[in-house]
């Protein structure tokens, strides 16, 4: 049961910030409520004042600047809106696909990207796949606005660097470098993901028809893992092992071979996730599965551009 609270509906971020400042610990931002209301129903969190930021004009907008390749997502944009945004579908297809797989349709219809990142629940998809881009977040507080890397927003489970009177207003996602493609894969039996692995990769030379892609060399690669541990992370050590290798060396599966670099990258990614034991499974199990999904996500990312290479695991 929800305890009574007073609802505030500001029409500007400044007003929201001053309400949060005025009521201090008694107040909290309320957006889709899919996380906050659950915690309040359980009595885990108690607030006498909720500040509804969905009444602030402009925060529900998605914008894409063709020139700079920058995607700007307002904090109150829902997962469903991201999934169906024509701009995201054409310029960030990986994000549209991943957003369509968040939670269930009812949570996607109401839950927002800002709420997802600010709640910092470890089992989060956007928290992981947005790390493949140099994603920044805009935060507004009493002293004005600051922009920080997404990686610095999340401190740990249910903990961010936001002050009580700060509001996350916008998420800024730069386009991949020319020629880079990405894939995000998640796995789990419960409502929330057990683990998620994202890979983005650029290979050279590129061929328009995908022929001879096995001989192409990885010139840039990013690996992000999430949901399994306390927070999503990029795995630089795994990225280094994949750099400079040919696609054939890393995905020798079609010849029945194994890639020692890919295997080692998988092991390091599993380790970097800092996987925890919980109802989703043991840490050891998740660590192993992250390695399995790293291979699949790499194959999918490569095949997204050049659909001729067979994944060793498909």
């Amino acid at each position, binding site marked *: 049961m*929800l305890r009574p609270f007073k609802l505030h509906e500001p029409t500007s971020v400044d007003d929201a910030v001053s309400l949060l400042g005025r009521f201090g610990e008694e107040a909290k931002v309320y957006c889709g409520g899919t996380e906050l209301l659950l915690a309040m129903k359980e009595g885990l969190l108690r607030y006498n004042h909720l500040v509804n930021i969905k009444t602030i004009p402009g925060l529900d907008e998605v914008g894409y600047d063709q020139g700079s390749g920058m995607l700007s997502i307002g904090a109150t944009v829902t997962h469903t809106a991201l999934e169906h945004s024509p701009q995201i579908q054409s310029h960030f297809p990986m994000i549209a696909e991943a957003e369509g797989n968040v*939670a269930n349709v009812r949570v996607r219809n109401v839950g927002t990207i800002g709420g997802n990142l600010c709640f910092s629940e470890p089992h989060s998809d956007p928290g992981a796949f947005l790390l493949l881009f140099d994603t920044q977040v805009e935060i507004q507080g009493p002293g004005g606005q600051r922009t920080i890397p997404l990686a610095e927003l999340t401190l740990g489970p249910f903990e961010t660097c936001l002050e009580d009177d700060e509001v996350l207003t916008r998420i800024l996602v730069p386009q991949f470098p020319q020629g880079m493609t990405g894939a995000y894969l998640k796995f789990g039996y419960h409502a929330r993901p057990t683990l998620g692995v994202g890979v983005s990769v650029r290979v050279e030379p590129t061929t328009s028809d995908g022929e001879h892609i096995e001989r192409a060399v990885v010139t840039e690669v990013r690996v992000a893992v999430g949901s399994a541990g306390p927070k999503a992370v990029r795995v630089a050590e795994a990225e280094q092992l994949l750099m400079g290798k040919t696609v054939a060396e890393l995905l020798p599966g079609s010849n029945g071979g194994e890639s020692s670099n890919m295997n080692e990258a998988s092991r390091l990614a599993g380790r970097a996730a800092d996987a925890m034991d919980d109802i989703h499974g043991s840490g050891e199990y998740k660590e192993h599965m992250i390695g399995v999904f790293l291979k699949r996500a790499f194959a999918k990312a490569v095949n997204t551009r050049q659909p001729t290479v067979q994944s060793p695991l498909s």
Partner: protein
Amino acid sequence: MAINETQRPDIDRIPVSLTVNGRTVTDNVPPELTLLDFLRDWLGLKGAKRSCDLQVCGACTVLVNGRAVSSCTFLAFEARNAEVTTIEGLAQNGELHPLQQSFIDNAAFQCGFCTPGMILAAKSLLDQNHHPNEEEIRAYMKGNICRCTGYKKIVEAIVAAANGD
């Protein structure tokens, strides 16, 4: 029951006007009232069910402006100015909705507890995608849990309704 409904000062209430199954409803609701309690306890519409109370099972699914939501965790005031559809609103002039008829014809329920939510979720799917394939149906419906049927007949009922048989 709505919490502290009688003790609350009116000043904290939020005036709302919405339509529920096409009927206009105007009221003042406390902010913490969930849409599920509003429908069941204030309006007497018992079709939406409470089960998990966590947005996992879908027994409480209703449509707000055509979108499926978990009414157990959706505040009633958020439905202001919206069109709310519950299972009670599907039959027209005593004639069952094609999805309702299809669930009967295909034996797509046993205890029936999940059925109002299943049918409303299926309606929101078919309203945006007239002929989904089985994979699309399963992906869309995965957030609605049924403990009885094993889902096969539910999928068949939705396919049949989409095909108009």
